[in-house]
């Protein structure tokens, strides 16, 4: 007993404080991660879940996946979705950050209001964009018609050619505030004197952007892009509510396809396998994030 007491006396007392949170996370996250891997190596479906007759079938589920056209399509879709979202939300977010960091009167309040799209539940965002892009009553079709860009209403969400575009637009709308806020916080850390002395030396706006702003913002840009990737790659609610992966699987992402396998087709093991592929890709990029964050964390 006194040995235990001595162990927790000094620095190790920290363990006691952090134990409750750790145990909680181990039960509700750690265990599921492991059990998800086990599940993906079994053949659990709704038929044998309750009977408890599950068999180890090795990597058969994964082999099946890579012959499954819908899975391959989802994988491709996920990459297209993630990369398009990243590019647009970053460029628009960056432009807004540069603009709103100029010290004019409404800059701060506008930056504040911009955050709203980011805070709204994705289910609601999905509903809002369905309303905007509805075929008959959608205001987007109306606006495009009134400037004569189109003559017939477009079936935005029910056509496999355009559904992905709308989903991307909706997600970019959510992503812009995140990019703007982080980048504009990064911008405020750049000393104003640098720009002043560059101006004295005759640098124009473009030169000071490429020679001062970009290099000094590098670490912020890295974090924004990596985090943006992590958040976007795993998006689920938005797409599930807007299209449920359709039409004709044109908007299925790994996350929605995993859900479909588990909770619509009740192939729990297949669903787990898809989720693991998603996790694996996420972790490959996540390592960059872990490296950035763990830097300077001494033991």
């Amino acid at each position: 007993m006194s040995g235990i007491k001595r162990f927790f006396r000094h620095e190790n007392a920290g363990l006691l404080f952090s134990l409750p949170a750790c145990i909680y996370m181990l039960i509700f996250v750690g265990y599921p991660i492991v059990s998800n891997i086990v599940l993906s190596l079994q053949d659990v479906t709704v038929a044998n879940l309750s009977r408890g007759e599950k068999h180890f079938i090795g990597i058969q589920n994964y082999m099946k996946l890579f012959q499954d056209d819908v899975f391959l399509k989802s994988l491709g879709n996920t990459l297209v979705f993630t990369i398009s979202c990243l590019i647009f939300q970053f460029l628009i977010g960056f432009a807004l950050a540069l603009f709103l960091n100029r010290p004019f009167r409404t800059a701060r309040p506008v930056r504040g209001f911009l955050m709203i799209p980011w805070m709204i539940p994705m289910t609601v965002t999905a509903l809002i964009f369905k309303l905007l892009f509805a075929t008959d009553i959608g205001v987007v079709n109306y606006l495009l018609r009134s400037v004569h860009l189109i003559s017939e209403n477009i079936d935005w969400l029910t056509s496999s050619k355009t559904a992905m575009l709308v989903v991307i637009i909706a997600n970019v709308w959510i992503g812009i505030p995140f990019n703007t806020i982080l980048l504009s916080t990064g911008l405020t850390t750049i000393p104003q004197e640098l720009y002043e002395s560059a101006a004295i030396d005759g640098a124009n706006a473009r030169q000071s952007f490429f020679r001062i702003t970009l290099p000094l913002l590098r670490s912020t840009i890295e974090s924004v892009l990596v985090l943006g990737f992590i958040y976007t790659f795993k998006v689920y609610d938005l797409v599930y509510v807007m299209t449920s992966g359709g039409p004709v699987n044109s908007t299925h992402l790994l996350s929605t396809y995993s859900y479909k396998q588990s909770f619509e087709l009740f192939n729990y093991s297949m669903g787990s396998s898809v989720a693991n592929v998603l996790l694996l890709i996420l972790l490959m990029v996540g390592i960059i994030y872990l490296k950035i964050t763990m830097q300077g964390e001494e033991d």
Partner: protein
Amino acid sequence: MGEERKITGNKNVILCIISILILCILLFPLFWTLITSLKTEKEIFSNPPTFYPHELNTQSYAAQVETGDFNMFRSFANSFLISLGSMLIAVVLAVPASYAIAKYRFKGRKIMLLFFLVTQMLPVSVLLTPMFIMFKGMHVYNTWWSAILADATIGIPFSVLILKNYFASIPGELEEAAYIDGCTRLGAFMRILVPVAKPGIVVCAVFSFLYAWGDLAYGMTFILDQQMRPITAGIFNFMGQYGTKWSYLSAFAIVTIIPVALIFIFMQKYIIAGMTNGAVKG
């Protein structure tokens, strides 16, 4: 950070106008949803569309109170309960853990930190199926608890990582002075550190609440009874059944946004702090 030299005169006016125009464009989807919720179903289908409700119709909100499986005010209360519960769990567990990670150099600290970072990145898809099976075994499936317990797993890692920075910035002398005055470790933590870290704790509470409020996957998968489901799942079901009843749907959306809007109005600075602190190491 340097003092800001304000832009004045005409240039200021022009920049203000441009910024407000940009804001209007970006927030147009919200405006459109709000006015749609106040139109009659007939006016919604009018062509060309009207940009403000010609005939004010609050029936879409009122009808929800009285009838149907899809009483949005009950879903609202469900969501509120679930979000509050998971917020409490997240804050109570994350505060001591983040204090320990910030102030103590114990064995396994780095691994613990890494674990929280990894859990913060996890997609719901990975946890959904095993949690579903686990909750069935624990007999919390189809109760509020399942969503509360699951939603807290989003709030905890976020809160630990944010609060760690707050605690780390509190000078050690404060704690030492408390020990000299005869405080125990727990006493110093409760009486000195927690009050000082209060702004950080508010950030965590707000975000844990918002994460749970926005959740669809957990609430929809673990709770089957429409009576007990959160408002996000309510919207989703409603869309499935009355797909084009846009007046009701947009009213549903607006009601869901209300708490978010209130949090935005009263806690804006905490939101900005959370977004920037959580992502880029302070």
